[in-house]
């Protein structure tokens, strides 16, 4: 299923509270009206914290704040187009972005998801969690900038290898991670990025999503993140990569 990801920061003049209120209660409400049966989900990931680049750098090389990353998943491209190219969506939803987002600096992509099983998709603390395997109360989204000169297909190969490498070297993360999904950018992103008003901004070929039970387990991700950066093959430009701790706010979710 193709999935749209748009990662933005708040427009000038808004507090984070202003931004989240507008994004969820105004934009989310308008958008929900245009949900359709072949839309899998629309989730707003509200950023709680995050880190940009690495501690090896003295200053940031690019924009170093992001306030939300939204994800909209569809069954197929025709259903994606039926939403994004609907005249009412263009009139009401696309035009709403300027009221809360710094649109020219929005990172945008159409991607497809690849889920890799994790060793412990369930918390064993409370048997009730068995009703919702793979969910967690804390999520990390890691935007991985492909290193210059690396072929896209090699980048994906290294990504899989680096993930296994990091999982082996971070046993606490291996124990705590409940779900792991790679979102890989499709070239069709270039054809429809106008909806989000995205300008000439960096291209991210991959976003990794990690779910943990609770925010206090996010230290597990830090161990993983340190480990994956030590993967011996150069595949990511770490100074232009970043990760976000987010809170999921579902605007639309289709029961399966």
């Amino acid at each position: 299923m193709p999935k749209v990801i748009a990662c933005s920061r708040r427009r000038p003049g808004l507090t984070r509270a202003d931004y989240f209120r507008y994004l969820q209660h105004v934009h989310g409400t308008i958008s929900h009206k245009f949900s359709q049966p072949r839309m899998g989900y629309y989730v707003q990931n509200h950023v709680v914290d995050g880190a940009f680049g690495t501690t090896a750098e003295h200053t940031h090389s690019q924009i170093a704040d992001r306030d939300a990353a939204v994800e909209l998943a569809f069954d197929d491209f025709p259903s994606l187009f039926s939403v994004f190219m609907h005249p009412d969506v263009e009139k009401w939803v696309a035009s709403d972005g300027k009221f809360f987002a710094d649109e020219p600096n929005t990172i945008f992509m159409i991607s497809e998801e690849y889920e890799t099983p994790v060793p412990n998709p369930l918390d064993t603390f409370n048997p009730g969690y068995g009703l919702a395997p793979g969910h967690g109360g804390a999520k990390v989204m890691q935007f991985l900038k492909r290193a210059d000169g690396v072929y896209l297909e090699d980048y994906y190969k290294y990504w899989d290898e680096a993930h296994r490498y990091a999982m082996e070297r971070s046993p606490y993360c291996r124990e705590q991670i409940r779900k792991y999904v790679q979102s890989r950018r499709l070239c069709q992103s270039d054809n429809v990025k106008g909806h989000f008003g995205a300008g000439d901004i960096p291209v991210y070929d991959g976003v990794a999503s990690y779910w943990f039970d609770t925010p206090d387990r996010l230290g597990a991700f830090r161990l993983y993140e340190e480990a994956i950066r030590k993967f011996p093959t150069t595949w990511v430009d770490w100074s232009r990569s970043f990760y976000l701790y987010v809170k999921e706010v579902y605007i639309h979710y289709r029961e399966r």
Partner: protein
Amino acid sequence: MTEATVVIPPEYSSPHPPMELVAQWKKNELTGEEKTRPEARYYYDALAAPDPENLRMMESPCDPSKILWPERINDLLNPGYLEIETGWCQMPNGGGFIANLTRMPGVTAKMAYWWWTWFTLTNLRYKIWYRPSHLGHFISPERRKIILDPKSRIPEDTVWGATHHAVEDIGMGPEIIDIHFKSPEEMGFDMSRFHPPNVSGLIGGYGDEMMMLVPGAPRGCAVMCHILRDVPGGVEWRTRFWMGYRLQNRKTDFCVPPGVQVPAEAIRGLAIHNVMEFSNFAVMLPKVYKEFGGKPIG
């Protein structure tokens, strides 16, 4: 063509060849190193004449009501022939359809798989296939390792799952095409039916293209299927393109927005190119395979 006129957006999927190199490829000139290679002599061979009947059928569009839709790809495993085996048209949904049947005496599926392994290592080999349009070809370092590994299986490791980056000009200016080759199963074929006598091989997958000289041009995509069937003395090479489609999870997905139509000239250009390149391929492959086919890939 000057470098200043070329815009390759940063989101292009892979490192691309310098435009000076592409310009040199356009001149149909071999480099000094290429000229020293034994396969270079095939570059100078006269091009095979295309089948005039196939060319005639590509002059104007076929009847869209008779085409094979990608959802029915398994009909290619039926005995006999489909209604349109050679032709092209704009599909009612905005996509583009191409079919082309090339009879290839002296060719086998084994040869085809070998070619799709061997030729990937150099530009020259892509060019000897069809020099008027084939400008260059490159693969990633990891793919090269697989091709050169004597333990790699042909076609499971070397063809299916590969990504190629081809630079060709079929009349609309040079374009880079990333072609993602898939196994028959990944293409959506019913594997219980994927065996002789109705099929002996598959070269297929999907491609994403980018026009190198047209800034902001939409990125196109197409599903490509070359299905081979043994006939006495050779194979039938049955080609299908569904332009505007991509593959995911063994299914095709139509990526053209509503109201947009794959241009007729783009479909027709690819259709005629397909006739030309596979006419030459049918003659070139047995000769090249005879000389290089039994040797280690390198």
